[in-house]
């Protein structure tokens, strides 16, 4: 910062400082020195006054000394030759009878960042290590580290290192911690300070004397120590126990980290520690400082990866306050989604619903996405809310809802019909490219269920010239081709126009290439195109059934209490995976890859590895047809499955069966006894109908376990065996605990 007239100022100050009259008047002299410091802190270059300031350091006034030292430290590296002159004064002060002066001088001497200092400071530091005042020892210990960092490439002085290790036993707690800090820095290249058994136990016993900062640091150092035996481990844990509930969040969290690390072989101890720390963690989430609250939330999120139930009853603590910063609100929403269960779902959804109209579009979109995540388990309630939001006719909300719909049908195929109905009835179309892509994807993928789909798409094709985003154009191409495959009559003409425009007039190479690709593909014939373009309509993985797995603590404890999770670079792997799958473009790429084209799910049965069967859904059966066939046909196969019916929500059950291509026709609600379900599926040339039954007096063996009765037309025993084993494996997945059966 170049100051106008700075030279004038310096000249004037120099005149004043060298004036013998001023020097004689202590007060005036000091005032000028203060002035120099003030200019210095404002960024004015007053280094020219160095000589005058060095003179001023020869005084008995400690304040004046302090100010001059501050000045000297700042400019020493710029004026090394002049700084050497000051060193004599400083060395003299290091022998002063007042320990305060000794410490101050030693500290400032060590802070001179210039080469060649070592020879001057070594002797005072070594003397300082043995000083009787702890204040001086504290300074001297850190001085060792500073001295080392002045000459980083020289050999480590063994005697100093030994002396520092000995000083770990010093009666003053700050000296002990400073020794750790100094050793760590000096021995950086050799892996830092060594924590052996005597040192570890010594530190543990001194813990209560330390201030909170030092406690936190010692806890971090102790991460390096491995106890030899379980007895020793539990001794250490009981010494640390009280610190789990420290009033300083950073100490509590550091203790928890050490607990998790030490007890890695004792999951129950870890779980207990997490339980005990949950109260301080929750308290941090409600702290007055928003930054602490944020850090608390990030830690809670990590703990929830292994213990999702721990904070379940406290879900209200994660409701957002109106005036909270958005980074807190985002985290709270993420946590709320994880905490949803049957009891609180209504309240949580109500809460999230109110965030959807937030002034900040990002927050509103995040809230809508959160509802979408919950919809994977509680689709009905969520769909109502999302549909209601469309009625607000706000651009950013509509767009976010459409994107959420897209993700929802991908993960949760049983909601497709409802979504398609809503999308069909929705008048507004999204204005941003993300939203447009989502809508087009839905139209292309499920165009057969949205009656107005061709008209909506025609609107986009007509407006193609004004569309700027090439991602939207690509999505439009894919969607139009898919729609052509299921509704050729309505789409043929507009697809022709679209391809013509994209090939002849489009300037973006990627779009043109994509159009050419589809064009050539269509030349090969409709069936060929269908094979390549249509892929699975939902996520074939079973993640929706089992929900989130509880991860082992070892997955995250290494990053616990570090900066990573707060800086957002430690997204939990599942979120990362999901967001990758959420990208429609990468889905589109997958669809284009040959070899991934399989509409049928193939499962090998666990009972008989040779037996393979492929099931498919085919055209839906009406209730009447099913009933008629069920009454007409003979039962071919009856089997007791050996486990009770899954207690999952109806939606989940339906989704699960659908994933393995078994269609659910009807089932009795909730806990009615007897419980029945009717399902059907198709396999190579045959239609399989089945009834699941539990708790019927007349059917033997059905009190405790599910009984499945299968009818088929035409008969194919191989297919029945395959069907039963697929059914069994799905239902077992839904019965999480009894899966050993």
């Amino acid at each position, binding site marked *: 910062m170049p100051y106008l007239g700075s030279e004038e100022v310096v000249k004037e100050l120099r005149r004043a400082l060298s004036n013998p009259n001023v020097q004689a008047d202590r*007060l005036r002299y000091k005032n000028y020195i203060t002035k120099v*410091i*003030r200019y210095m*802190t404002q960024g004015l270059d007053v280094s020219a006054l160095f000589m005058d300031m060095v003179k001023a350091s020869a005084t008995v*006034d*400690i304040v004046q000394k*302090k*100010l001059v030292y*501050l000045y000297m430290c700042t400019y020493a590296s710029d004026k090394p030759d002049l700084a050497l002159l000051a060193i004599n004064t400083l060395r003299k002060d290091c022998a002063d009878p*007042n320990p*305060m002066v000794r410490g101050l001088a030693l*500290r400032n001497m060590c802070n001179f960042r210039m080469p060649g200092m070592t020879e001057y400071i070594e002797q005072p530091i070594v003397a300082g290590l043995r000083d009787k*005042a*702890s204040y001086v020892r504290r*300074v001297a210990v*850190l001085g060792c580290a500073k001295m080392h960092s002045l000459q980083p490439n020289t050999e480590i002085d063994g005697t100093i290192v030994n002396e520092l290790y000995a000083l770990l036993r010093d009666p003053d707690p700050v000296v002990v911690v*400073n020794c750790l*800090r100094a050793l*760590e820095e000096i021995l*950086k290249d050799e892996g830092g300070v060594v924590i052996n058994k005597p040192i570890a136990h010594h530190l543990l016993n001194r813990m209560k*004397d330390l*201030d*909170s900062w030092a406690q*936190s*640091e010692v806890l971090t*150092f102790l*991460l*390096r120590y491995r106890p030899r035996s379980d007895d020793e481990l539990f001794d250490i844990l009981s010494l640390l126990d*009280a610190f789990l*509930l*420290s*009033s300083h*969040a*950073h100490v509590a*969290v*550091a203790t928890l980290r050490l607990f998790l690390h030490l007890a890695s072989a004792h999951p129950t101890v870890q779980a207990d520690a997490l339980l005990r720390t949950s*109260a301080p963690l*929750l*308290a*941090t989430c409600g702290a*007055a400082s928003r*930054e*602490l609250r*944020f*850090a608390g939330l990030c830690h809670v999120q990590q703990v929830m990866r292994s213990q999702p139930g721990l904070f379940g009853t406290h879900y*209200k*603590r994660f409701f957002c*306050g*109106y*005036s909270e*910063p958005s*980074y807190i609100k985002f985290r709270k929403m993420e946590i709320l989604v994880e905490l949803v269960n049957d009891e609180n779902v209504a309240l949580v959804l109500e*809460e999230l619903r109110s965030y959807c109209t937030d*002034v900040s579009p990002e927050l509103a979109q995040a809230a809508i996405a959160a509802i979408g995540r919950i919809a994977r388990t509680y689709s009905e309630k969520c769909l109502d809310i999302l549909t209601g939001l469309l009625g607000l006719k*706000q651009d950013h909300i509509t767009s976010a809802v459409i994107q959420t719909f897209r993700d929802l049908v991908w993960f949760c195929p049983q909601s497709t019909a409802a979504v398609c109905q809503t999308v069909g009835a929705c008048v507004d179309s999204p204005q941003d490219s993300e939203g447009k892509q989502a809508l087009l994807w839905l139209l292309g993928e499920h165009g057969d269920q949205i009656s107005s789909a061709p008209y909506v798409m025609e609107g986009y094709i007509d407006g193609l010239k004004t569309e700027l985003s090439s991602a939207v154009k690509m999505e439009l191409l894919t969607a139009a081709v898919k729609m052509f495959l299921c509704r050729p009559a309505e789409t043929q003409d507009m697809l022709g126009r679209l391809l013509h425009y994209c090939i002849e007039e489009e300037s973006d190479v990627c779009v043109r290439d994509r159009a050419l690709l589809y064009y050539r593909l269509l030349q090969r014939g409709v069936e060929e195109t269908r094979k390549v373009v249509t892929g699975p309509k939902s996520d074939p993985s079973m993640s929706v059934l089992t929900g989130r797995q509880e991860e082992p603590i070892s997955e995250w404890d290494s990053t616990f*209490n*570090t*900066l990573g999770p*707060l*800086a957002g670079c430690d997204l939990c792997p599942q979120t990362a995976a999901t967001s990758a799958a959420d990208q429609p473009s990468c889905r589109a790429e997958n669809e284009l890859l040959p070899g991934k084209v399989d509409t049928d799910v193939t499962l090998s049965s666990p009972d008989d590895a040779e037996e393979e069967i492929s099931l498919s859904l085919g055209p839906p059966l009406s209730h009447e047809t099913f009933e008629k066939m069920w009454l007409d046909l003979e039962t071919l196969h009856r089997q007791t499955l050996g486990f009770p019916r899954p207690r999952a929500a109806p939606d989940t059950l339906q989704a699960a069966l659908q994933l393995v291509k078994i269609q659910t026709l009807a089932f009795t609600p909730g806990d009615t006894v007897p419980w029945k379900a009717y399902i059907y599926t198709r396999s190579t040339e045959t239609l399989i109908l089945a009834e699941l039954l539990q708790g019927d007096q007349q059917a033997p063996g059905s009190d405790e376990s599910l009984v499945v009765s299968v009818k088929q037309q035409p008969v194919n025993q191989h297919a029945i065996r395959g069907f039963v084993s697929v059914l069994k494996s799905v239902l077992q997945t839904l019965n999480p605990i009894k899966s050993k059966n």
Partner: protein
Amino acid sequence: MPVLDITLKDNALIMIHSLFLINNAGDLFLEKHWKSVISRSVCDYFFEAREKAVEPDNVPPVIRTPHHYLINIYREKIFFVSVIQTEVPPLFVIEFLHRVAETFQDYFGECSESTIKDNVVIVYELLEEMLDNGFPLATESNILKELIRPPTILRSMVNTITGSSNVGETLPTGQLSTIPWRRAGVKYTNNEAYFDVVEEIDAILDKSGTTVFAEIQGVIDACVKLSGMPDLTLSFMNPRLLDDVSFHPCVRYKRWESERVISFVPPDGNFQLMSYHISAQNLVAIPVYVKQNISFFETGSSGRLDITVGPKQTMGKTVEGLVVTVHMPKVVLSANLNATQGTYNYDPVTKILVWDIGKLNPQKLPNLKGSLSLQSGAPKPEENPSLNIDLKIQQLAISGLKVNRLDMYGEKYKPFKGVKYVTKAGKFQVRT
């Protein structure tokens, strides 16, 4: 996002390299380096994040840059931006920065840009004592005050006359005491111990007045001026209320666990003895109710506002310092209201309506009523404004917590003792 190129996995050093103070307008007005000097340009990453966040409240606390982490807190319209070069526990740094801000507040009465600039020399002295080589050194206000005396008007006058300084001339005795939080050889002519039980209600009420969420955050602040080495025991009438507590390091935790009494050798002067949370909703009383109706008409670009506040569960005490703050939607241009009590003020720039009521009179409930005028042609606002309530109740801890007695051992004299209770609204919000 560039990967941090300094990965110090095995390094356990917690070091704060530098500190920058930046005001609301983005001016960097103070910098302090404890190790080598780091160029101000590192703050460009902060300014980038600051711009992206729009509101200063929304700047994320941890920002990654290619070579450093920037950890910042925002307090009293100042960003405290610390530069970190090694992996550190984030809570540690955040709490430390708050401690720095609290120390400034303690020394200068308030922590603002102007007071920091006015006292820049003391600020540097403090920062120098609080950290050495990047490691926390002296942060207890007790010990700091012995090293550097806080400025007072009287003292600066005396200093000017006598030429004495605001720096301790002797080695602080606290540094030699066996108990780190208490200095040795304390002497007072009047021995006194005062405790303030301060409770803040954090609550969210919905439209109909039902509690969506409520909890109490309580602290017990102490001002203990006792000679020698007193050993105190504080007991409560109803300690079972407290299940989620944390204490000052001086408190013997084992005795709390076994006997539910707080036994401690106090630091000298002001300190926070303990803090606690009460979140069981049936225990959290809501002292006031709010009846409100804020509506906007489809046509005519106007709206109506009608707010009444009344007492609910006040345990027979008077509610004071009542202030209602409404964040209005952007389209509200002005408010033409009539308050039966207190004064109101609508700031058309920040869109904040503040109604300062004062004391709540249960016989005559305060009411604020009138019309709002909206920007013409603008659509009816979608979101409903939220009400924030501020209030104070003297001589009451809303949780019902009561101190039973305070006993002193280890010293012969008889101290003066006193307990005060006060309840305040924390984050107290009513939805509309």
